[in-house]
């Protein structure tokens, strides 16, 4: 294992320290329990948006703390859910009196820990809503598994709900908007290489040089199948087909096309994927009117990418376009 770290045990805290030092105008950090919050939190009268998850997916979630997006983010250990005391303290700290929305990616650990945090907050009389993100079409048999995983739609949901909260929507409305984003989005990922969890010290899975994994999760969970490496255009096709064939897309729909890098794939390659995905969306009759291309939700140093399609309407477009000022996403401000 070759990593730019001092020790696996100190990695998350040291990275957080560097992160807040670099972005002190936007975010502040709290340690024990660990969370990042907007520098100006709590924002009075605004619904607070809190998310969190294992570390190793940067810039998610800490990079999305700031005006127009998250009020707080709770980083867990690498690929491990944060704990209820983190979400509880973070939510209390950023609650501006209008309640707290918890955005939870559908992984067993995240769900259980956020459930416990919501229980603790309700016991304190804090108004709480939870919204689950489960957009990964790679998980086929969701009845007999822990269900579809939360992947690319998380970034889109955090942006859109953050803008809606800034616009003054009430807690229930923001929560329902988050659920709508999730219901309107589908994603699929691939991996060209594995990643190495620092405290494990060796690659999470073995993938031969001439193969790639179709349907990878963001923690190196295996996907649907393993295939011989193909040109990017073919890979784009294998990713787009299950996304488009899954509900809720139909010809004529306006969509946001999000091509996301897994950490080890350069923008040079991501745009090759975007080029073909855009063409395939067009062939399916979808109109791509918004996009996002870059590494916004990563799996450490894994090479690979995911594609997310979000069906748009006027509300979603308005809140997507609204100003955002965070360390990792910034426009209109």
């Amino acid at each position, binding site marked *: 294992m070759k990593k730019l770290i001092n020790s696996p045990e100190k990695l998350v805290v040291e990275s957080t320290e560097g992160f807040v030092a670099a972005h002190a105008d936007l975010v502040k950090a709290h340690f024990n329990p660990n969370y990042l919050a907007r520098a100006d939190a709590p924002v009075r009268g605004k619904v607070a948006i809190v998310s969190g998850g*294992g570390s190793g997916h940067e810039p998610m979630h800490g990079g999305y703390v700031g005006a127009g997006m998250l009020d707080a983010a709770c980083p867990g250990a690498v690929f491990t859910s944060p704990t209820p005391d983190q979400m509880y303290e973070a939510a209390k700290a950023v609650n501006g009196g209008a309640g707290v929305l918890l955005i939870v990616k559908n992984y067993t650990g995240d769900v*259980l820990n956020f459930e416990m945090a919501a229980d603790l907050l309700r016991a304190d009389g804090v108004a709480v809503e939870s919204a689950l993100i489960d957009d990964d079409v790679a998980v086929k048999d969701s009845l*007999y*598994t822990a269900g579809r995983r939360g992947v690319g739609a998380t970034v889109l949901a955090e942006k859109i709900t953050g803008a809606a909260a800034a616009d003054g929507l009430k807690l229930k409305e923001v929560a329902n908007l988050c659920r709508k984003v999730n219901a309107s989005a589908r994603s699929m990922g691939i991996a060209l290489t594995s990643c190495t969890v620092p405290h494990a010290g060796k690659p999470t899975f073995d993938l031969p040089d001439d193969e790639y994994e179709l349907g990878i999760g963001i923690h190196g969970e295996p996907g649907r199948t393993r295939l011989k490496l193909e040109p990017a255009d073919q890979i784009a096709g294998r990713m787009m087909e299950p996304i488009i064939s899954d509900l809720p897309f139909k010809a004529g729909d306006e969509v946001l096309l999000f091509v996301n890098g897994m950490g080890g794939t350069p923008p040079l390659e991501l745009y090759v994927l975007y080029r073909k995905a855009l063409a395939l969306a067009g062939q399916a009759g979808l109109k791509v009117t918004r996009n996002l291309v870059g590494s916004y939700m990563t799996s450490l140093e894994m090479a690979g990418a995911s594609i997310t399609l979000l069906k748009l309407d006027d509300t979603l477009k308005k809140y997507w376009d609204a100003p955002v000022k965070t360390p990792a996403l910034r426009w209109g401000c």
Partner: protein
Amino acid sequence: MRELTNTAVIDWLKALAQVYTEKKDYLTDLDRAIGDADHGVNMARGFAAVAEKVAPLTDQDIGAIFKTAAMTLISTVGGASGPLYGTFFLQAAAGASGKTALTVTETGAVLEAGLKGVVARGKAAVGDKTMIDALTPAVSAYQAAAGDGSLSAALDKARQAARAGAEATVPLVAKKGRASYLGERSAGHPDPGAESTALLFDALWRVAAK
């Protein structure tokens, strides 16, 4: 040993810190095969913190010791194991409140309450390839043997049943947790959570048999 005393409970939790540290790489390797390669690390970190927190509680009742263990696990482990093992001890704490020793029957009730809590939180059933596959048969075996009045004999049955339950997860296809994403590919590997539960009962039996 006829009763499970508060100091025995502390010894058990300290023993678990040692066991999970020793088995850290083993459990993490099991988790790498069908999960996300963090179970051993998380359990070792969590129980090391528990051992430190409960060590000074020798004058406290078992309910307080379990509750401390629960809150420590919930706040240090993360993943699914933190809430699940934390819930086990939190529910166990209720029946042990105010008691500095548990009879054979009371110990059974406490284990039963812990099991019920884990089932309610994780919503898994026997056969889903989770810690429930070790925990359920262990508690059943304990209850079946508890009538004879020997704590260590009942716990011996419990740890054997937990061990057998953990080994029986090998051919199963996971239906809960991260391993479920593998579908058929999860068969052929033991469940790391069932394995850590088997270790938990093994350590409890060793403390009681001393």
